[in-house]
């Protein structure tokens, strides 16, 4: 008997930040996942089994995440974890998941550590921040003829990855120099000083690893300073419809490198339109990044469970995951895994804000 699997139910767990600083990712992701699960369940489930997604809230506190993991693994005996949020939170949870053979499916953190550990238990959805920013930086260096790059980041696991990606890409490209960086805290709200410094140094491309609100302020402030030839690049964390929608066009021209495509530009795709309508019905809002990630992950899980057949075990699940290979219409990327390759979509999409919306300019295949 496989844990979390009964004749009529598959129990999936997830720990999330539903009440803290990252609720903007977690809540829509959970909503989107639940939306799909409800659809699947209404259609009879997977091989006759209903999906039950138990979500625990940790409010971005590690001890509560450990408690949640303990509950989900030891009490609820979940089959797998889906979309769990937070780097240290996931790392702490792995300690109880691994001995119990609970796979971690598409955690909501793009830290590279999410793939370290027992291979059959680790799956990530898209390229890491590192890969995405590195690829996008490389693309911009080439297409825009940039020679001096810089970065602005919050010294955290997320910020460090983007910083390192920038440094590494500059270091590996001839004639390109990594100049400097400025460091920030998530609570900062004005960047005159930092931008003055980067401008002084002569930065041409600046990778930005901040949260959404500060990102908007950075771009707006640069415009305000009359610094028009600077190019700003954000990772998937800043690749959000709201950024493009800021009134007054202050974010015009911002670049993003992410593992998926913006939704708004693809509303003519029927699947996208249908899903957006369903989500709007459900939450009253146009789905954002979190929802898209939640949907993608849930879809991959469903497909794998379907593929694994009625005899669901960790082995059959692993095998099924490794055969996943399909176009994710909603994320606009290709989900592809294989033995030894547990990172799903690895294509990087480079977009820019033009006329109040994200426009895809290019895509790069990593690896």
């Amino acid at each position, binding site marked *: 008997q496989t844990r979390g699997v009964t004749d009529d139910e598959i129990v999936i767990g997830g720990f999330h930040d539903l009440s803290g600083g990252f609720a903007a990712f977690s809540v829509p992701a959970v909503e989107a996942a639940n939306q799909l699960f409800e659809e699947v369940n209404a259609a009879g489930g997977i091989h006759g089994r209903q999906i039950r997604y138990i979500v*625990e809230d940790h*409010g971005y506190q590690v001890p509560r995440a*450990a408690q949640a993991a303990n509950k989900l693994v*030891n009490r609820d005996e979940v089959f797998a974890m889906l979309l769990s949020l937070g780097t240290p939170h996931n790392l702490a949870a792995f300690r109880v998941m691994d001995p119990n053979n609970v796979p971690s499916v598409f955690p909501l953190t793009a830290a590279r550590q999410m793939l370290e550990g027992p291979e059959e238990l680790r799956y990530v959805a898209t390229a890491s921040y590192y890969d995405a920013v590195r690829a996008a930086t490389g693309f911009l260096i080439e297409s825009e003829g940039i020679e001096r790059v810089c970065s602005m980041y919050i010294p955290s*696991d997320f910020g460090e990855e983007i910083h390192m990606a920038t440094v590494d890409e500059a270091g590996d490209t001839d004639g390109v120099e990594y100049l400097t960086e400025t460091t920030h805290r998530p609570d900062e709200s004005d960047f005159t000083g930092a931008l003055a410094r980067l401008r002084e140094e002569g930065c041409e491309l600046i990778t930005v690893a901040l949260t959404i609100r500060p990102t908007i302020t950075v771009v707006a402030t640069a415009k305000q300073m009359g610094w028009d030839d600077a190019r700003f690049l954000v990772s998937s964390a800043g690749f959000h419809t709201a950024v493009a929608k800021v009134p007054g066009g202050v974010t015009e021209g911002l670049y993003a490198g992410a593992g998926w495509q913006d939704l708004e530009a693809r509303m003519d795709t029927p699947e996208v339109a249908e899903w957006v309508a369903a989500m709007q019905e459900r939450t009253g809002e146009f789905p954002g990044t979190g929802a898209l990630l939640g949907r993608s992950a849930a879809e991959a899980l469903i497909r794998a469970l379907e593929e694994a057949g009625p005899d669901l075990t960790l082995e059959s699940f692993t095998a099924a995951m490794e055969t996943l290979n399909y176009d994710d219409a909603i994320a606009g990327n290709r989900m592809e895994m294989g033995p030894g390759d547990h990172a799903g979509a690895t294509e990087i999409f480079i977009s820019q804000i033009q006329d109040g919306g994200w426009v895809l300019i290019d895509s790069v295949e990593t690896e």
Partner: protein
Amino acid sequence: MRVHFKKSYDEDIRLFEDWRRAAKYGVLIALMTALPFLISDYILGEVTLVLVWCIAGMGLMILAGHTGQVSLGHAAFMAIGAFSNLWFMSQGMHFLIALPLAAIFTGVIGAVIALPILRLSGIYLAIATLALSIIVEDIAIVAEPYTGGVAGVFAPPIEMFGLTIDRYGSPKAFYWMCLICVVVVTLGYANLLRSATGRSFLAVRDSEVSARALGVNVTRTKALAFGLSCAVTGLAGALYAHFIQIVNYESFLILISITLVLQVVIGGLGSIHGAFFGAIVVGLLPQGIAILRDFLQGSVGIDISAYPGIDTAVFAAIIVAIVIYEPLGLYGFYMKLKAQWQLFPLARRDMFRRSKSYLKTERMR
């Protein structure tokens, strides 16, 4: 109501005023020792975490409850305890040495930090400690050789007396280890309170002016209280690191400090019991709510999880209710229950109705 006839000063100095009390706590300890055989590993894990919170809570209680100095940044000292313990262990030190050493190290750092910020009090101290904890967060990233930077450090399993103590591998052993720590810290705390040092803490809390007039060196006393508090919190941090098994700078964010403050206030400021009651609430209530939520969904079909974040909101609402019902914390409630029990059947129902009360400025010190 029992009346004590005291025959010697020792009866006041003793930890337990009579054999009944001693017996009561004896039974409690026996029960706690036997607990791993009575409950599942899941609940045991939760109880273990509560024990860790008890220690951290006692650490803050020394400062906030007994010396009247509020710290909004105590998670920083948990961090220092955790990282130093793991670093000492990584240098080949045995856990049994690394653990107390981490506590001492944190205590010394606390006392040193205390010196410049001692002149502060009230919210000024609170915000200064908050700033400190923010700075420590960033130091934890910069001090990569010791803290593992953003990636953090993994806690190695503890080898002791030929057995491995691991939170998940051998939860019972880990639990007992925490229990021993709790008992030791509680004993030390109780000793402190019945001594001149403990009274000087109370004196500083209630009236700095008279404390000084009576020869209490207020600065030194505050530094000592801060140091002791940090040492205990550091110890909790070290145990916490082994409980979570991986710590990085994000394991000790401000929210943890705030939770600690919440814990001691809800428990009841100024009593050791309070630290325990608070730990139970903060440690177990969210799990209780989650289980109740699952139960509601499974049996009655009420799916409150359709409202994301409602667990935390319910938790907060319960905290609101507790504070409104018992502003002085659960310890006050416990004392009332006890008094009613002892007075039975003479207790008046409205005996503990709150009478009107008024505040005066605390800006005059």
